[in-house]
């Protein structure tokens, strides 16, 4: 590996291929992610987004191609890659039987950090979970679980974070909270690779968006560049109606006290 500390992308993927038996999920995926940016990998269900994330986080081996994360090849330097990343999978991977605080302490210990208790308390405060810290996670709402999940990913300040469909199954309020967190992360210098099937989410968060379709990246660019791919905009006059999401958020806006109110995690997703 040649040292190119400044120009090097945080994530470099080239010619990535992966098949499950007869099914060619990835047929040569290429993209780069610049450091401290948010990159959205967009695609429909089964497009292979999770497969890409699993290869980048060393959970799966690619059949062909290279993937370099934070300067380390995932195939040959898996241990170094694991030091550099955190994965927040599609389903909130939190321990239901432990309390929120115990979950955070567990991860801090596994990352071999000093003073796991303080790390846990800081994150609980940052994610408005202090009041629920001692409760079993099985009593948390979907939004709280997801906040805890992301908080667990931040332990040890890994430079690269993978968020695999971070807002799937969340209600609109919880979704907005997650978006704010992700934006803050990138502002603080973390590189975020986000997968989503929610176009709105990609539009709001990502500096660059790539669309994964039938195993390849078919477009990759900023939102403005993507919009230029379409014919120039026509002017139409349309009455601006509030969306149901606007209505929902306006009615339930209660100062967002701790998110405890949103018990139902199945409500209002746009799948």
């Amino acid at each position: 590996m040649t040292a190119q500390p400044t120009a090097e992308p945080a994530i470099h993927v080239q010619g990535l291929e992966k098949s499950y038996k007869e099914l060619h999920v990835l047929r040569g995926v290429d993209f780069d992610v610049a450091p401290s940016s948010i990159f959205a990998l967009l695609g429909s269900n089964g497009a292979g987004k999770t497969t890409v994330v699993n290869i980048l986080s060393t959970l799966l081996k690619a059949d062909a191609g290279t993937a370099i994360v934070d300067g380390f090849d995932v195939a040959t330097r898996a241990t170094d890659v694991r030091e550099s990343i955190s994965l927040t999978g599609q389903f909130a991977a939190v321990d239901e039987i432990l309390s929120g605080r115990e979950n955070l302490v567990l991860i801090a210990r596994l990352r071999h950090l000093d003073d796991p208790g303080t790390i846990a308390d800081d994150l609980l405060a940052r994610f408005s979970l202090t009041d629920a810290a001692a409760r079993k996670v099985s009593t948390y709402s979907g939004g709280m679980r997801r906040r805890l999940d992301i908080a667990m990913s931040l332990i040890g300040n890994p430079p690269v974070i993978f968020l695999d469909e971070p807002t799937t199954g969340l209600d609109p309020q919880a979704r907005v909270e997650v978006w704010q967190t992700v934006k803050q992360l990138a502002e603080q210098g973390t590189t975020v690779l986000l997968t989503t099937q929610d176009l709105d989410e990609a539009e709001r968060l990502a500096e660059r968006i790539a669309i994964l379709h039938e195993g390849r990246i078919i477009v990759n660019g900023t939102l403005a560049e993507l919009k230029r791919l379409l014919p120039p905009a026509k002017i139409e006059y349309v009455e601006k109606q509030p969306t149901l999401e606007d209505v929902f958020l306006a009615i339930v806006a209660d100062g967002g006290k701790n998110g405890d109110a949103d018990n139902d995690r199945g409500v209002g997703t746009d799948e």
Partner: protein
Amino acid sequence: MPTHFFGDTAVLTGRSLRHITRSLDTIITTTIMPIAFMLLFVFVFGGAINSGSDSYVNYLLPGILLITVASGVSYTAFRLFEDMKSGIFERFHSMPIARSSVLWAHVLSSLVAILMSLVVVVLVALVMGFRSGAGVVAWLAVAGILILFTLALTWLAVIPGLSAKTADGAVVFSYPLVFLPFISSAFVPTSTMPGPVRVFAEYQPVTSIVNAIRDLLTQQPVGTDIWIALAWCVGILIVAYIVAMVIYRRRIS
């Protein structure tokens, strides 16, 4: 890479043990079935069974202990399956930890949970009149055989825990293990069984293990049974460990 193996295993074992202590119902469930069998056989069938022993509780306790282990490992498979399904395994595997400690933590907490169940069953047996004049060395030998048997069945339980598609599938494998002591010397002497059944009973692992434990507890010379018993336990342990590790490697790569 194994630099953190012991530390990581300790942290993860602590986690699994918390799961066990917070769901005491699982320990109670795994303990109730063997205790129910013990009550049934001692107080209902026992009067009609001629075991050639003065006390039927003394006669059947070794078999009951093996049933306790077999019903305990079904929860080992269940806990492992839950971890695989919930995505927390993926989280652990994407972290800079010694990967094999994730499995070892489950194995060690299984051992602790089952030893706790075994103690409960022995206490109940004492209340029901079980007595043994065995010395410390004999008890240690019994404990050693039971630990080895538990480790062997635990690694066996890792296989369905890793590969099952449903929670039921993960648990179901233990049913034949629970049933095996019935076709052995655990409840009745094998000499009363008809030809083919008797042959199966005498050559399956449970009989030699039961005989070895029974001889140790009743201060009889143990003979060759203890070596056959140890060979079975070590053999199952090694084969189950190898198969489990092959499946594990396949699952995480």
